[in-house]
């Protein structure tokens, strides 16, 4: 049983091949870290798995369905309903409060405002953010903003969470708090996680690590 799978995926940006036959499969509820040097194609692979980019060749499957052949609009609905995202720089909406930011995926999914905010609120205690509900992103530290982004990524109980260098802008202790919370929350909800990181200490939180090199995925050979 696989939650997410890429088969022989290739993708070029103009003349630049970013992926050249990348394959990976992730089991339901599994947390997989994609490692590799900068420019090796990690983010591109994540964007393909998450239906943001469409590969030139190969297939992407989610929950047994092929998603790379879906229309732009279908993929956008899939992302909204099934996927959560955390990026390197929180990318919170600056005009909204922290609470509204967390509620955003629910609001976009058609949940009424009061209900969405009600669902968002418990995340603040859970992630050690109690009292910060009303702040805007400019009034949050990097670690706090990233925890808000994590809550936003998980609030709609997505089937899969895609995280691209979620600790990349944080110092190591703050980064660890974010990873601890990410792993604990994902496990609690049974969310499958694909985590891109170039840091081994971050990757060590995952169940399994793979390495992207020259646009291909190398499974790690444990002796």
């Amino acid at each position, binding site marked *: 049983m696989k939650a997410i799978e890429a088969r022989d995926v290739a993708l070029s940006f103009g003349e630049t091949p970013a992926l050249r036959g990348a394959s990976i499969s992730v089991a339901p509820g599994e947390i997989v870290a994609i490692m590799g040097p900068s420019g090796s194609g990690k983010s591109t692979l994540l964007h393909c798995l998450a239906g943001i980019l469409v590969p030139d060749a190969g297939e992407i499957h989610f929950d047994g369905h092929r998603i790379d052949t879906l229309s732009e609009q279908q993929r956008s609905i899939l992302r909204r309903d099934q996927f959560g995202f955390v990026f390197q720089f929180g990318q919170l909406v600056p005009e909204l409060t922290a609470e509204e930011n967390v509620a955003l995926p629910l609001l976009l999914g058609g949940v009424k405002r009061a209900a969405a905010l009600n669902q968002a609120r418990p995340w603040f205690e859970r992630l050690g953010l109690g009292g910060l509900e009303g702040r805007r992103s400019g009034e949050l530290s990097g670690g706090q903003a990233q925890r808000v982004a994590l809550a936003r990524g998980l609030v709609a109980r997505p089937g899969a969470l895609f995280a691209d260098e979620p600790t990349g802008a944080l110092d190591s202790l703050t980064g660890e708090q974010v990873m601890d919370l990410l792993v604990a929350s994902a496990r609690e909800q049974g969310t499958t996680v694909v985590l891109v990181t170039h840091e*081994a*200490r971050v990757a060590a939180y*995952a169940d399994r690590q793979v390495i992207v090199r020259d646009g291909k995925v190398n499974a790690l*050979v444990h*002796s």
Partner: protein
Amino acid sequence: MTLLGLLEREPSHGYDLKRDYDTFFSRGKSLPFGQVYATLGRLVRDGKIVVGEIEPGVGPERKRYVITDRGATEFESWLTEPVQAEPNLQTVLFTKVVLALMLDRPAEEYLDTQRATHLRRMKELTDIKRGGNLVDVMLADHGLFHLEADLHWIDTTAARLDALRTVVKG
């Protein structure tokens, strides 16, 4: 083990072994002849090398040492087995990489296996941290940061293998 590796390359005199050892592995302080011959003597006694043809003349310089099957097997398992993922292994890893390149062995594969071994240990330490008390956490962190440093070295070395091969093969 380093001398055994150099002999796996070709039968050599003690003098050649000392010269190659000093070039690649001694890091500034050269290996005394006495130690070279003491080690060779031990390897002969243990059946890992034998003295090949003795050339005419006097002194230890006449002896050429040849690796035996037993010695080659032992060297091979040392080279291919990843090192226990404890911190501060740079010198052992470095020796393995250089010898692997000298002997045209798949140095990149060894580095990959070593990387996997390190990552697995890092995962164990990370699991210990979760739910551990602060002392456990700090001890695990110490190991994690050192293993991470090793990994940086492994990655950088993997990226430089071609250049290193040229240097080592002369």
